[in-house]
């Protein structure tokens, strides 16, 4: 145990995901040794991210305004909607350059072990977007693991009666994986070869 501020910083850092007590200590002493201007910049970025970044009112992607950049873009197609678990998945799919429609970010996947059901996800909001009738294809791009597959099946069961074409990314993505970690080529190919559910 250290005294005061340095221990406070270690405690805060070790609450972050993927950071154990040892890395927290290393980071804290790095901060202590670093240039004051560098740390001021880091600290300002941390504050700004909470003050300025919001969630898009339409798709729940991260945004700096009421609507995100993609929802504001008039050149994107309104008839195709791609459902993902997290904002980082939007970034991964954008990198492939295969998709020119809109997104919907669920905020996770159905996961009873962690107490996550449909009510904890942005599913009601998705349904109300779909009821406007503009969407003709719904692409389910949840992760290719147990929870992502269950979420996709759940959405397909709800949406198909609405007469919307429902597709799922083609296999070829590493099973048991995270969309985020698929390389552009694999993910792009999975997008191209998506199959109807």
């Amino acid at each position, binding site marked *: 145990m250290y005294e005061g501020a340095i221990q406070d910083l270690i405690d805060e850092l070790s609450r972050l995901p993927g950071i154990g007590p040892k890395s927290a200590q290393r980071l804290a002493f790095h901060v202590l040794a670093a240039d004051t201007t560098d740390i001021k910049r880091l600290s300002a970025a941390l504050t700004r991210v909470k003050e300025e970044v919001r969630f898009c009112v339409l798709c729940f992607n991260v945004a700096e305004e009421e609507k995100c950049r993609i929802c504001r873009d008039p050149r994107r197609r309104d008839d195709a909607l791609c459902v993902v678990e997290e904002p980082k998945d939007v970034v991964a799919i954008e990198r492939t350059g295969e998709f020119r429609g809109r997104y919907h970010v669920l905020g996770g996947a*159905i996961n009873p072990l962690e107490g996550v059901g449909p009510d904890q996800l942005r599913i009601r909001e998705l349904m109300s977007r779909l009821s406007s009738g503009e969407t003709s294809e719904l692409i389910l791009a949840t992760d290719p693991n147990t929870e992502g597959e269950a979420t996709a099946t759940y959405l397909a069961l709800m949406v198909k009666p609405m007469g919307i074409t429902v597709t799922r990314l083609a296999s070829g993505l590493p099973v048991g994986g995270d969309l985020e970690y698929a390389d552009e080529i694999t993910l792009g190919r999975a997008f191209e070869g998506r199959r109807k559910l």
Partner: protein
Amino acid sequence: MYVRRLELTDIRSYAGVAVDFEAGPSVLIGHNGVGKTNLVEALGYVATLASHRVSSDAPLVRSGASSGVIRCAIVHDGRELLAELEIVPGKANRARLGRSPLRRSRDVIGALRLVLFAPEDLSLVRGDPEQRRRYLDDLLVARQPRFAGVRADYERVLKQRNALLRSAYLARKVAGRKGDLSTLEVWDQHLAEHGATLLQARLALVDSVAPHLEDAYQKVSAGQGKAVVEYKATAMPENILQALADVRDEEIARGTTLAGPHRDDLVLRLGDLPVKGYASHGESWSFALAMRLASYTLLRSEAIEPVLVLDDVFAELDTGRRERLADLVKDASQVLITCAVEADVPISLRGARYLVSPGEVALVQ
């Protein structure tokens, strides 16, 4: 296939040990408790990612150490492959094959095919259905490694479905509310899908292994009785969804999944009588041994000849059965035998000899 070298760092009683093996029979000799089983258990772990003795990983790491490493060089078709597993209790294992780290430790399965027979295997015939399901699934994975994934997928879906049922059960019992079961249909579908794949494979496997079992029991027991194995399913592959629907009310009342291959069993019989509850101690032992020998001869007849491990087996057998067992396995590509008394092992199996003492293994010249 054979194991050319085994290296352990902070595994069980070994701080660091390296043993060089040869093809053919090897005998590991030492008093009780010196660490013989610890060696072969480590090999079993590389083959199945589980110990045949304990269900958690913590006891495998030497007490006082925070992680342990098993490394082994496996020779197959004249090519050598290095498999390495780092066990860190409470965390995901790290695995390597050759030079490349694996994304998932599960991908190491298949590198070493191994059949291990140990005194604990008496529970195959006397223990819970779980032991017999594991026997089948381990053999399935040794035969077709891709089923390690099917099994893991099934188990994950089962866990999620049970969690959903339990939360609905608790909502009703504790809060008097109706739980949210809106995703149950989805979990049913996925459980039935993965379950059917697993079950079909198990059924086909039982058909393939049954004649090998009958044959092995004949040989081990010198023709005393016919060993029969049958799969007892809670539902056939195409009926799992229906079976789930049939027990739904009870599942919700009890908060757990009541149909599917995780509830199945293997029925073992000698002639017309069930082994459990009827067979003598000697017959039960012969039956368990015959089950492992059947795994071994099935794998050997199909593709890659596995490594055979006989842990502390000969002391339990009378002279006749010792000799018959030796005849069955003496030309195996590799058989590793552990014993306290070397004289218990028939001459035809006394290949290379190793003396095991606490923390050390020495080749006897």
